[in-house]
């Protein structure tokens, strides 16, 4: 059953694959098999590795920012370079590191958690990944082509107009996010169809694991929040490349429109980042507390409520723009309201831990650190939702501290928890708990040393995004403490990276279910075979795998129903690998450069290439093969009626 067994000779595509223009690679080895893969597990790993690569870039940028702020009147970074650093740090962390990390874990885990073979549209999934990578790499080439974006991660108009910002940096920002955003959009659509339509027999919506549930909410947020951003980016691209007037005040345009469009996207984006983190935490805390999740329906419903309310709070980012007391009051109230379901979730997690037999693995440590840190960030969030307070703290380091507590301490710590939790499933090997715990005790305290003093700096009046500060106004000490913290946290991150990388080779074998897990991904092997499950899982309860292992804990003496069925006579369908998603996404690179340099030939030819790749994609068909797992005398007939029921 090893992966390598599926060699080229066995591979017989059906559909139009046989006479395809581009030969579809077979087998699971070699570079081509990765470039053309449509396997959700491989794409998930690619997403996660790429996210960590970009996180490395962003960490270097952050480190340079902190070094610059180490002492007053420092000249390590010029103001221009400093602007590029904080812009690229923010853009990278939000769009290229944390959000794709959530999508990467979803890619790997959602099909496994719902007992599906893959996402609904495997090739589209591949396209989503390559578009994300193309957008990210395009953005990073700006460093070599005249300078990175320097307009802040939310790139307010009219700072982005051609007259105010003639360099190419802003174009890199607009086009790069546009391309990456397309990838995110199609992946979210794919996840929605998958979760709605491909659940295992018996898995009703209220039996869906929480991570998958919250990915569904996240995906809905993406499909509704990314279009306003995409259009806003498109408008600025039009302004800069074609001379339109969307954000030209001299022509009567209102630059504040950008702020509205950006934050109509930007606030849901906050939840797009944090809801998968909530999902991860809702998996890890029950597993390591040896208890079912406390208040599963409440967690789900409050997640949905957060999803709705996420679209109703955007102007709290704009309290100081002069929208008037009525608007400010209304959005202050909605911002308070959105704190309620979030607080409810925190109590759900505490209630899950209460009375549980808690096992403090590294993963659980990170989850607990998440609880504390995220709650602190939430508290400062409620403070900032009060317009008079916001007027004082706006654009200060208090805001910087706030969103690093929720994004870094919230989302990022929970994804580190997820990494330790799911790494054994993905690779079949354990990350060293010893190294993991040492890295935890460096990383999390380091985080607090960096960001906690920034609350003080903000309240003392230090503005964000300012390259330096003068001496003698009391800002030195906390800036030095904060910079000192980067060394501790950096050491923790390097150790964590070392622990993970060495675990690929030297980690001890994990077995199928190292944590005594609760959900279906733990019922298959580690790593799962390329076809995911030998038999179609059947779900009779929440925590499907747990119920199967310990029926007495849920059903008393009752004998559990079977948890799986043989796949039907057609076998398991494995979709064929394909070059077209990769080519269509790669063609967006010359398209982007054509748009960047206003070279219409390059732009036109790349667009034509995308159209051709789309036709190739459509005409080659799903392709692939069907495999049959021989169970050797399994009772094939017995459960067949249950599928039809």
């Amino acid at each position: 059953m090893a992966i390598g067994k599926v060699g080229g000779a066995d591979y017989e595509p059906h559909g139009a694959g046989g006479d395809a223009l581009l030969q579809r690679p077979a087998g699971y080895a070699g570079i081509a098999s990765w470039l053309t893969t449509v396997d959700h597990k491989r794409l998930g790993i690619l997403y996660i590795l790429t996210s960590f690569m970009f996180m490395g870039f962003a960490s270097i940028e952050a480190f340079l920012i902190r070094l610059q702020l180490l002492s007053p009147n420092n000249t390590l970074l010029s103001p221009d370079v400093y602007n590029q650093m904080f812009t690229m740090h923010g853009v990278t962390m939000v769009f290229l590191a944390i959000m794709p990390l959530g999508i990467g874990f979803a890619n790997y885990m959602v099909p496994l958690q719902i007992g599906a073979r893959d996402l609904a549209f495997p090739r589209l999934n591949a396209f989503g990944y390559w578009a994300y990578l193309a957008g990210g790499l395009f953005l990073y080439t700006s460093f070599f082509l005249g300078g990175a974006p320097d307009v802040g991660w939310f790139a307010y108009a009219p700072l982005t107009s051609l007259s105010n910002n003639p360099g190419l940096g802003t174009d890199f920002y607009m086009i790069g996010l546009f391309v990456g955003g397309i990838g995110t959009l199609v992946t979210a659509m794919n996840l929605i169809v998958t979760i709605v339509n491909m659940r295992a027999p018996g898995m009703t919506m209220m039996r869906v694991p929480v991570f998958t549930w919250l990915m569904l909410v996240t995906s809905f947020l993406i499909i509704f929040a990314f279009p306003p951003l995409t259009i806003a980016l498109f408008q600025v691209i039009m302004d800069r490349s074609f001379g339109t007037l969307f954000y030209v005040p001299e022509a009567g345009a209102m630059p504040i429109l950008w702020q509205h469009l950006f934050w109509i996207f930007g606030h849901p984006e906050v939840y797009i980042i944090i809801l998968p983190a909530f999902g991860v935490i809702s998996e890890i805390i029950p597993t390591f507390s040896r208890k079912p999740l406390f208040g599963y329906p409440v967690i789900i419903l409050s997640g949905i409520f957060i999803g709705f309310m996420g679209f109703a709070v955007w102007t709290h980012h704009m309290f100081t723009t002069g929208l008037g007391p009525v608007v400010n009051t209304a959005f202050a109230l909605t911002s308070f309201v959105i704190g309620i379901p979030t607080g409810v979730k925190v109590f759900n997690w505490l209630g899950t831990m209460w009375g549980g037999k808690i096992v403090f693995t590294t993963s659980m440590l990170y989850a607990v650190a998440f609880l504390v840190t995220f709650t602190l960030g939430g508290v400062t969030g409620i403070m900032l939702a009060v317009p008079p307070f916001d007027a004082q703290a706006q654009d200060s380091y208090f805001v910087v501290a706030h969103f690093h507590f929720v994004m870094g301490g919230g989302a990022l710590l929970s994804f580190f928890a997820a990494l330790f939790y799911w790494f054994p499933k993905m690779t079949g090997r354990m990350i060293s708990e010893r190294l993991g715990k040492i890295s935890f005790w460096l990383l999390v305290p380091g985080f607090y040393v960096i960001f906690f003093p920034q609350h003080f700096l903000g309240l003392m009046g230090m503005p964000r995004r300012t390259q330096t500060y003068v001496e003698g106004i009391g800002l030195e000490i906390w800036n030095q403490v904060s910079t000192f913290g980067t060394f501790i946290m950096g050491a923790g991150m390097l150790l964590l990276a070392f622990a993970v990388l060495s675990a690929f080779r030297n980690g001890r074998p994990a077995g199928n279910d190292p944590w005594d897990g609760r959900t279906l991904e733990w019922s298959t092997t580690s790593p799962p075979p390329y076809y995911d499950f030998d038999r179609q899982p059947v779900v009779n309860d929440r925590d499907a795998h747990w119920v199967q292992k310990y029926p007495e804990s849920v059903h008393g003496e009752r004998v559990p129903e079977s948890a799986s069925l043989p796949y039907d006579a057609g076998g398991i369908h494995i979709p064929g690998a394909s070059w077209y998603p990769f080519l269509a996404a790669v063609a967006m690179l010359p398209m982007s450069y054509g748009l960047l340099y206003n070279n219409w030939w390059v732009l036109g030819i790349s667009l034509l290439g995308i159209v051709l790749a789309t036709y190739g994609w459509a005409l080659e068909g799903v392709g692939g093969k069907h495999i049959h797992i021989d169970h050797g005398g399994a009772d094939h007939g017995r459960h067949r009626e249950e599928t039809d029921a």
Partner: protein
Amino acid sequence: MSETIAPTATHGAAVLSARSTKLPDVKLMMWVFLASDCMFFGTLIGTYLVYNGRSLVGPGPLDVLDIPLTTVSTFVLLMSSFLMVLALHSLRQNDISKFRLWTFGVAFFGAIFLGFQIYEFRHFVELGMTLQGNLFGTTFYVLTGTHGVHVTIGVLWLLSILVHSYIHPWTSKDEVYLEVAGLYWHFVDIVWIVIFTVVYLVEFV
């Protein structure tokens, strides 16, 4: 435990019964895409409305818009939706020649609409309304242009279906692929009704 690998025939019907909602993935996907597309057009229409009347120089909507002309093109687009319904009905009845006829009709009517739009754009430019001239020009061309791109994609899609139906003869089993194109087409049509109302008609109230 061992595995054997065998190519098998199509699996469309079998897959459908295994789906949680019993609906084809492609159909759900189209609904999800259209939900998202609502936000794309919503943002563009919102931008248009926010900037409506804020142009510092002319020409304005009343100077260039020609309601009778655009009413004709709107009517053509609406009728194409009617033909879309007929095409899908014919395919379901396995009446392939009618299916091809109506599908061609939809694409043809869509192309007529595009012809009107090209004429309209050229005419407006002659009247001095350009993409870079004032906010009305900027927002009008980008909004209606985005809609025009949607129609163009729809026309190409339907023509591709038409050609494909000769290469790999279509039967009623393929109806979902036409239905999905139809959902897209009807949506683009509905968006035009909104644009026609908001951009054209309301100006003359």
